[in-house]
């Protein structure tokens, strides 16, 4: 017992001495005017993280030889529910693994192209001073590995991406990520750090069209994105994947934009950025509402969260957020602070995906889905998805509608009385006074841009929910009503 205690004391003493030594040494440490002169000692393997996480801060560590091993994988994933897409990735995620370095590090970069991959790739790191940002030296065939080294000279947050021809296609498929070069002594400590990167995607089918969707080069050239998302897919930062913090904490977001085409007007609904490291560089702006992040650029934003709630991250080019997927969530837990915000918390009206626009079609042509529902279960599943995209905003989650404005679909006498009339309302729209469950409504429902298949699915879902009469609506029934028109 006694010996144990002594040894503990000794350790403490030793620790104290060594701390003193370190601090003595530190005070003598020379400031290097020229980053290229910073010496490195020791070698370490870099910690790489998949989004939304970032590796441990560099803190006070000295410049080192840092070994980065990055594997390229071409792999299938889901861009939104039911929509498959082949991503090309650095490290198996979109965006690619986060690399964290400090100024003066000598990075030995290993780029490994998985043997199953079909294409050669390379990497252009914007943090590299040298031709092609490393692209020439890293051009690697499938089943091979290339190694090159560089010294990090300028602190900042930088994009890396694949630069193999056709560059646009490689980037459009997800080949981008962020590398952080921290200044001497590291960035000031904060409570939470996250990694978010926006990207635009171009698929053969329109937004939400189910099944495997190949890349569409023409849409990419025309800059007509089907999806604009954070972290590679519509739901990467929503629901269970939301990022989180506690009231009173300071949150730092490393935000990049891979493009390939669109610039981001990055905004967090209900927050003001206390600090923005503009374009990821040294310039710090304060009290910013929305910061512009160019394609192939980045920014560091910081803010203290004062009140609980769900804060929505968006590209404030707002149709991208609500109709193309550029939406994420930050959940803040803790005590209410009514001095700062007294209102009730409201969430759920933001639609993270889907063609929720109420717009009159310009032509009569609406393309049928290539993947029709095989059975009633699938009809219900697809129908629910359409309902959440198209009907939810007015008729609400449980079909309860909104009093005096939008009639209920739950236990609706109007609905259950006449299926053809219901079909007609969806395909032709409905205007004028109607009575539903004894109440009068006089409002406008626009004609919906849905295919016959989709109308059948969504109505089947509605008829089989919330106490309605379980009618199964088929495509043929819808076509019949269309014919009468």
């Amino acid at each position, binding site marked *: 017992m006694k010996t144990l205690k002594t040894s503990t004391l000794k350790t403490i003493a030793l620790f104290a001495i060594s701390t003193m030594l370190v601090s003595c040494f530190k005070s003598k440490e020379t400031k290097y005017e020229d980053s290229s002169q910073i010496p490195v000692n020791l070698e370490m393997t870099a910690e790489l993280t998949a989004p939304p996480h970032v590796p441990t801060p560099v803190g006070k560590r000295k410049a080192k030889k840092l070994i980065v091993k990055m594997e390229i994988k*071409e*792999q*299938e994933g889901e861009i939104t529910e039911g929509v498959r897409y*082949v991503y090309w990735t650095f490290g198996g995620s979109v965006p690619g693994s986060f690399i964290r370095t400090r100024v003066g590090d000598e990075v030995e970069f290993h780029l490994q192209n998985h*043997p*199953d*991959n*079909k*294409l*050669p790739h*390379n990497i*252009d790191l914007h943090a590299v001073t040298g*031709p*092609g940002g490393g*692209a*020439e*030296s890293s*051009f*690697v*065939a*499938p*089943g*091979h590995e290339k190694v090159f080294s560089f010294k990090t000279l300028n602190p900042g947050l930088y994009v890396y991406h694949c*630069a*193999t*021809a*056709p*560059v*646009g*296609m490689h980037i459009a*498929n997800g080949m981008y990520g962020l590398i952080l070069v921290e200044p001497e002594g590291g960035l000031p400590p904060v409570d939470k750090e996250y990694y978010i990167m926006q990207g635009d995607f171009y698929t*053969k089918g329109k937004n939400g069209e189910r099944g495997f969707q*190949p*890349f*569409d*080069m*023409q849409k990419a*050239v025309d800059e007509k994105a089907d999806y604009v998302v954070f972290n590679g897919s519509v739901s990467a930062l929503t629901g269970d994947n939301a990022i989180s913090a506690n009231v009173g904490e300071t949150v730092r977001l490393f935000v990049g934009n891979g493009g390939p085409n669109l610039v981001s007007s990055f905004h967090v609904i209900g927050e003001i950025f206390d600090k923005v490291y503009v374009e990821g560089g040294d310039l710090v702006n304060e009290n910013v509402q929305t910061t512009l992040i160019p394609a192939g650029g980045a920014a560091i934003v910081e803010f203290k969260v004062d009140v609980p709630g769900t804060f929505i991250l968006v590209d404030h080019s707002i149709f991208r957020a609500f109709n193309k997927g550029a939406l994420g969530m930050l959940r803040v837990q803790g005590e209410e602070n009514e001095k700062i915000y007294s209102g009730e918390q409201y969430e759920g009206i933001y639609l993270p995906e889907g063609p929720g626009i109420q717009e009159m079609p310009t032509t009569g042509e609406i393309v049928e889905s290539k993947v029709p529902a095989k059975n009633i279960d699938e009809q219900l599943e697809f129908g629910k998805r359409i309902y959440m995209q198209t009907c939810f905003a007015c008729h609400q989650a449980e079909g309860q509608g909104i009093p005096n404005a939008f009639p209920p679909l739950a236990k609706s006498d109007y609905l259950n009385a006449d299926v053809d009339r219901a079909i007609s309302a969806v395909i032709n729209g409905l205007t004028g006074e109607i009575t539903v469950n004894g109440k009068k409504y006089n409002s406008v429902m626009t004609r919906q841009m849905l295919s016959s298949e989709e109308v059948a699915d969504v109505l089947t879902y509605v008829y089989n929910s919330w106490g309605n009469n379980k009618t199964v609506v088929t495509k043929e029934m819808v076509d019949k009503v269309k014919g009468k028109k």
Partner: protein
Amino acid sequence: MFAKAFSLTSVFLVFHALGFTQAEGMVNIKGSRYIPLYGRDSTVVEVKDFQIDKYPVTNIQFSEFLRQYPKWQKANVLKLYADDSYLRQFKNGTELINPQSGNSPVTHVSWFAAKAYCECQGKRLPTVDEWEYVAMADEVSPDARRKPSYNQEILAWYETPRTDEKSIGKSPKNYWGVYDLHGLVWEWTLDFNSVMISGESRKDVDKDSDLFCGSAAIGATDLMNYAAFMRYAFRGSVKARYSIKNLGFRCAKDIDVNP
């Protein structure tokens, strides 16, 4: 009429000269002048009449070659001619690890081995210009490069994983009667690392001809170039001893002037 007779004769000659028959033989390609897929300022190249294999060389066919020429077996091959991935789908000798893959195109094969295979049959690898010339046909026309459907299909293939495991001859033949130029595997060409890529695309920064950001963007006049850029980028990334999972080959042959 004359052309047909000529073609029959030459096919006969090919079989006769070889002793070891390529099951589905070759087809005649009528040469011409054309502008290859790359860039705006590309010059016209001329392709003379030649013959090319209908199908990519399969695992079974390559296994037969290994039996006849054991020096190309995995255990015996010179390291100078093949890297560590060479013939990964074979056990040590001539036997496939997965016997089901006999009709899949042979891959994990170096340029040296591919070249030797063709030469042992009195053939050679096709040149880049020849290969691109045959590959620009779709089912109905010899030059489909301006058709969006043609390009879309090729690009979709470049994105689809594991196509090397498919069997040959399952998709329609092209205008010339040649199968599977797109859709299964990349193919070696005799001069894969010449012309504009010249092996320097990985190094030089001065030339406009390299295939990185700038030049790809400037040269890409329309969609058709993108598919081509990917092929040229691929060719630029490989060396002759590389043996890659998605890279196979087929052989070509000059048309004999003397009967």
